[in-house]
């Protein structure tokens, strides 16, 4: 077996306690990052669900010819921000009102004349569902001569915007803080592993080992520990996810890519943490 691999694996056998401690530390550090990631993922899902309902309704002047409307509908659909534009006639508006507003069914039944205007309902593509673009599209809709009024929940869209900004900022700051803490804790653990073997490193240098030769098993070992820690963190997160789902609320779990990213992150921290620790140690002796 390759010497580097053998030396790296021997460490697990010779110092099982410290190795287990390293992996556990990495696992829990990444678990915290992972839990926060789960919250972020679910918050994002929720916000996306809310943003789905961002809609602009253009009410049309009565008597607008259907040909004009069909043309306009096509025209609106070519706007880059627009996902779909749907014409709702007076009749179908009334039908929908009857279905949705059950309390007023009697009133709506007895109407002699349909008071509801026809409209075009415009849905925006996901990345344009913010206040600025909604306003812009609304302005453009107002420009059509047959449009009587344009409605969208201005306050509501602005609040959604604000919420999204807060979520992004908090996610970034808290996520970065957690990641930094994880890196520091993992770095310290790896440093212990290096110090534990400082005698061995000194002897290796005495008998003529190059720095690269000394470093390689540590790097491999760091990467393995980081990876194991990452896998364990995913396991812990999954456990937490199952518990939350059962007792608290329905949430989503990481996609396969996100899970792989966490394992990869652990591996990279293990690798670079080891490189930094061994490098520092070698420069000092």
């Amino acid at each position: 077996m390759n010497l580097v691999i053998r030396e790296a694996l021997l460490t697990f056998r010779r110092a099982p306690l410290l190795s287990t401690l390293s992996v556990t530390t990495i696992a829990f550090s990444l678990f915290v990052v992972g839990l926060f990631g789960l919250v972020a993922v679910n918050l994002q899902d929720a916000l996306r669900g809310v943003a789905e309902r961002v809609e602009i309704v253009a009410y049309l002047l009565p008597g607008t010819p259907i040909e004009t409307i069909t043309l306009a509908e096509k025209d609106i659909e070519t706007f880059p921000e627009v996902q779909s534009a749907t014409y709702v006639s007076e009749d179908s508006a009334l039908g929908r009102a009857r279905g949705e507003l059950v309390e007023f069914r009697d009133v709506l039944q007895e109407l002699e004349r349909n008071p509801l205007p026809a409209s075009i309902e415009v849905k925006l593509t996901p990345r344009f569902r913010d206040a600025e673009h909604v306003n812009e599209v609304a302005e453009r809709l107002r420009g059509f001569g047959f449009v009587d009024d344009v409605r969208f929940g201005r306050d509501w869209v602005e609040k959604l915007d604000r919420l999204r900004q807060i979520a992004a900022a908090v996610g970034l700051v808290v996520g970065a803080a957690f990641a930094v803490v994880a890196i520091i804790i993992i770095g310290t653990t790896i440093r212990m592993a290096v110090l534990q073997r400082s005698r061995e490193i000194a002897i290796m240098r005495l008998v003529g080992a190059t720095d690269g030769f000394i470093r390689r098993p540590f790097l491999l070992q760091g990467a393995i520990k980081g990876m194991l820690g990452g896998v364990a963190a995913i396991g812990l997160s999954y456990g937490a996810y199952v518990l939350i789902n059962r007792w608290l609320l329905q949430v989503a779990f990481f996609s396969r890519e996100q899970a792989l990213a966490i394992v990869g992150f652990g591996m990279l921290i293990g690798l670079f943490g080891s490189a930094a620790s061994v490098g520092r140690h070698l420069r000092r002796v």
Partner: protein
Amino acid sequence: MIKLTNVFKAFPKGGLALKDVSFHIAKGEFVFLTGHSGAGKSTVLKLIYAEEPVTSGEVRVSGFNLAELRRRDVPRLRRRLGIVFQDFRLLEERTAEENVAFALEVTGARRASIPARVMRVLTQVGLAAKAQASPRELSGGEQQRVAIARALVNEPTVLLADEPTGNLDERATRGVFQLLRDINASGTAVVMATHDLDLVRQAPYRVIELQEGALVYDSAVDEPRDQAVTP
């Protein structure tokens, strides 16, 4: 082989450890480095194996000018030296055999050649039968033999020994010393730092004595002296 010319060594906090030390050790020579503890014996050895940089003066070892030696060339120098310490410095969790093999593995020796070379040096130091023992299971003298085997396995031209008998009883001391003499007899130069004057008197080898960092006596240059060696 080993040549020190007007060597000064200052430690940042320890003042001057070596003052104007010059000597030349030829191929195949056996040299005692004597003096009180703190006289600078270990410092001389550390300069030779490039553990410490020289402050001024020149150190040449086996074709390397150590002042020009880059950090990444240090391993190449060390592979030409064998180094033995008072405290053996064996890896506790490896067997005698593995400790010796380790010195070959780090130099990238061909794997297939390692077991035979290891057994050869273990036989040379008289420990072939204890190849599988861990350092804990060996006596001090035996541990030092393993350390010497490790130093020899790369076939060095010089063996540096820093108080190799300092932790050993009289019997083990004699054994280890005899082993060093045998190694020297087969052509390897030996530089042995010691303050064991009985040992020094036993053999007709060159003596270099240090006192407070200065070279005060070199039997190759100075007049022979009877009682001059400081106790």
